[in-house]
């Protein structure tokens, strides 16, 4: 007499609802982070240029004055890529004005250099006349300066130390306080957002 064959019932584990719930929670958290982030706060970003000599910036400003980044050796320089048609750039401009004013008032060793990204010098001159700011705005008619810095969007800024090395890259708008904190960290040998 043969024994009847007993088939083990496959245990159906219900993984799908848990996986879906996990994905949903993750998405919600991601959306919450994006929605609550201050749009004016720059984010430190990785760059192959960090720790490397800053690419040369040589040319003329929108006012027709010659400019060379090499002449700024010995000072901290914020190289800021911007355009007048870029809304976040316009939003961060007053912060840059406040930062440069504070540096001038306190005899600081940091300055701003703007690089015009795909914009007309006339537009930039009018913008500075209207919004303030007396730092150099260097033209980049063929986009080579932006290419040398690996700019992937504006506003984008690079902090160059007194020895001419890139120590930080900031993607997005920056604030005066954020820049001060960034400088303090950079002086202490750290890097961070602005």
């Amino acid at each position, binding site marked *: 007499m*043969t024994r*009847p064959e007993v088939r083990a019932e496959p245990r159906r584990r219900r993984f799908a609802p848990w996986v879906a719930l996990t994905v949903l929670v993750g998405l919600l958290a991601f959306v919450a982070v994006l929605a609550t982030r201050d749009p004016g706060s720059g984010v430190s970003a*990785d*760059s*192959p*240029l960090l720790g490397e000599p800053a690419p040369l910036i040589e040319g003329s400003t929108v006012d027709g004055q010659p400019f060379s980044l090499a002449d700024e050796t010995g000072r901290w320089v914020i190289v800021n890529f911007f355009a007048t048609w870029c809304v976040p750039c316009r939003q961060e401009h007053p912060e840059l004005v406040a930062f440069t004013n504070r540096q001038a008032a306190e005899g600081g060793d940091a300055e701003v250099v703007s690089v015009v*990204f*795909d914009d007309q010098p006339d537009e930039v001159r009018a913008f500075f006349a209207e919004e303030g700011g007396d730092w150099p705005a260097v033209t980049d008619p*063929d*986009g*080579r300066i*932006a*290419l*040398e*810095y*690996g*700019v*992937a*969007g504006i506003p984008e800024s690079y902090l160059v130390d007194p020895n001419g090395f890139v120590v930080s890259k900031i993607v997005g708008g920056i604030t005066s306080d954020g820049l001060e904190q960034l400088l303090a960290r950079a002086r202490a040998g750290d890097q961070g957002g602005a």
Partner: protein
Amino acid sequence: MTPVRRWLPWIAVAVVVAAALGVGVVGERGPSSLQDRADALAAEVRCPTCRSESALESAAASARALRAEIARRLEAGEGDGEIRAYLVSRYGQEILLTPEATGLSSLVWILPVAGLVGALVGLGFVFRRWRATGDGVATDEDRELVAAARRGEPDHTGAAGAEVES
């Protein structure tokens, strides 16, 4: 079936695969003129500011600058690899639309091949098992079962084919 005839389809498959791989590796002759080389390189990299297009297709200012830089460097005598390395030194690996076959990026190339090899090996094992179990040769027990069924004896195994009493 002789061993040669049995292996003939596999040999044919191997020849076709080898030929396809050979064509893929050798490919067409590389672009000849500087403009062709510049276009080919620009097609390999992203538009820096738009991401969804290659630098060759994009009309963005950053893509125009990138194309001009590629052309300038080619005219200066730089090789394709040097130009790619320059772009990576500025934008990082993400500027390349085609991942490099070095370092971590090489996994993009290795994993599909490893998966294909694994799948083929698995299929081979399955086919061998099918061949081992499905040879269709009747055993003495099978013949006895058939003979018993013909004699009209009740099936003592409990399997299908037992007489049904009406």
